[in-house]
């Protein structure tokens, strides 16, 4: 009895010592910047140390800024294109791989996954070439007496769809493997029973595969939504926010405010707004999926 308290204390001390490096790193580079973002968003902040507390002025300015609302619209439109597309493609890929059991799966899995290995910058460079007016897609369209299509310099919907294609191509491999693992974990007996009962493939998919996949689906949905809202690299490489601000996303707005106009307080406020949007959407998505379960 008397040894228990000191050994407990020793356990606590060793625990804290092992935790110390990570606590220091997280304190300095995660927790302080998160609080810092909230704090800086309430100031007019210049890098030379010129800091003035201005309360909610940045947020008032943000709400009145046409550029902000434009960037929010651009981002939501992009996410509305990117997230469903990436889920359909990754779930489709996973179901294909799952259906073809056997030796060849490994090779196909690797071939489908390989774009995930490259950077968004590399993806942006290749697809800029693919989408060029004299690129392969337009060459093929020309053969069909169509086009030319101006993928990256045309109408907003076309530009955002083209950017979404690049992001889906680059990123779907991860979610595909997550879905595949989820599918592999599903019990085969349920499927056999369903087939014996004469369920159609569509019924099997809607009544069995999807409900069993729900936790995985939620994970992928939230993850891809967060990724979608953070779109920056492909825009930076492929369109620079253009043409005529057609791809001027929230993150591009933030980058411009911070590093072109050096308006750090305002940029911090944009960052906080981005966080709030992502947070609210994640909560709504969870609600939506839970409702579907009880319904």
């Amino acid at each position, binding site marked *: 009895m008397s040894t228990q308290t000191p050994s407990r204390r020793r*356990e606590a001390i060793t625990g804290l010592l092992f935790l110390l490096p990570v606590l220091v790193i997280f304190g300095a*580079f995660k927790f302080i910047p998160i609080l810092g973002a909230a704090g800086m968003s309430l100031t007019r902040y210049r890098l030379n140390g010129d800091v003035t507390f201005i309360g909610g002025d940045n947020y008032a300015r943000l709400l009145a800024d046409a550029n902000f609302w434009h960037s929010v619209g651009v981002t939501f439109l992009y996410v509305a294109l990117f997230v469903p597309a990436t889920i359909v493609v990754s779930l489709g890929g996973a179901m294909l791989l799952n259906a073809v059991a056997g030796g060849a799966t490994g090779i196909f899995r690797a071939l489908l996954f390989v774009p995930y290995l490259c950077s968004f*910058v590399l993806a942006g460079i290749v697809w800029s070439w693919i989408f060029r007016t004299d690129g392969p897609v337009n060459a093929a369209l020309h053969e069909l007496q169509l086009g030319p299509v101006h993928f990256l310099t045309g109408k907003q919907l076309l530009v955002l769809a083209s950017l979404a294609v690049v992001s889906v191509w680059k990123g779907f491999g991860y979610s595909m493997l997550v879905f595949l693992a989820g599918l592999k974990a599903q019990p085969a007996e349920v499927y056999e029973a369903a087939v014996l009962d004469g369920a159609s493939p569509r019924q099997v998919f809607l009544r069995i595969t999807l409900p069993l996949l729900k936790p995985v689906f939620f*994970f992928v949905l939230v993850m891809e939504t967060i990724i979608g809202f953070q779109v920056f690299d492909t825009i930076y490489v492929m369109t620079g926010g253009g043409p005529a601000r057609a791809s001027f996303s929230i993150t591009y707005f933030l980058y411009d405010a911070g590093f072109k106009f050096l308006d750090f307080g305002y940029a911090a406020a944009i960052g906080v707004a981005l966080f709030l949007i992502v947070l609210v959407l994640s909560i709504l998505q969870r609600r939506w999926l839970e409702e579907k379960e009880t319904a």
Partner: protein
Amino acid sequence: MTQTLQAATRPARRPAAKVRRAAAGRRPPRAGLMTLLCVASLFTVAPLIAVVILALSPQDAPTIPNAWPRELTFDNLVRILRLGSFPRWLLNSFCYSAISVVVILFTSSMAAYALARKRFPGRNVVLWSIVATLMVPVQTTLIPTFVLVAHVGGVNTLWGLILPTLANAQAVFLIRQFIRELPNELFDAARVDGAGEWRTFVSIVLPLIRPVIATLAIFLFLWHWNDLLWPLVVGQSDSARTLTVGLASLNTETVSTSNLMAAALISFLPCLLIFVILQRHIVAGIAATGVKG
């Protein structure tokens, strides 16, 4: 048995088709699936093959999509590797990725060991505050992190680039989940043998968590190697630029397509190499994040 015989001997097609359709509820014909898979793979791989062909095409020679190059050459790769700052960018990317991976994995393993195996006040608060940071987009903390690094003179330095990326919640969380599953007896045996805490960590925990460490190492390397935004804002001068940032800057300059693609190809090769060698770990790692996470 009789049914199979009947189906096999009877010339009528109907029953066979019916049986096949019933089976199709779960498994459509294999040949169709294989074709679909081939087409899908072609879509994912074709752009990368185009990179390789363009990178190996002689400069100014007609190449895809207008013509197939008559000969392939390594000239572009050699030229790019000798180009001004390119070797520097390559070195920076290697340092940024390799140092970050090693430090993150070591410190995260220590923290994960404490969070999984030691009882101390505030343990859960610490764990969940670390995991909660996953919900905050990197762009939200971009400005304050940059200001912080700028104030301590870290802009355009390698350490300024590396330090802020060492806070990685995924690594802590995944290693903790893994350590939690290890059997208690191992730790009891170590205690009975008189192993100190540090020895237990180094000679028991570290060897046992190798699978999760291998997986994380691959992903952390990929994420750092391919990262753009943070290296872009903190490494503005050539001396601290990473390959990804350099590649993006080449894209805006008037570099020929073959040279640009050569640079792109070089940036991609390390990732491909890692994947080919360690594929198994990648699949296992993703399965662990998605299904259990």
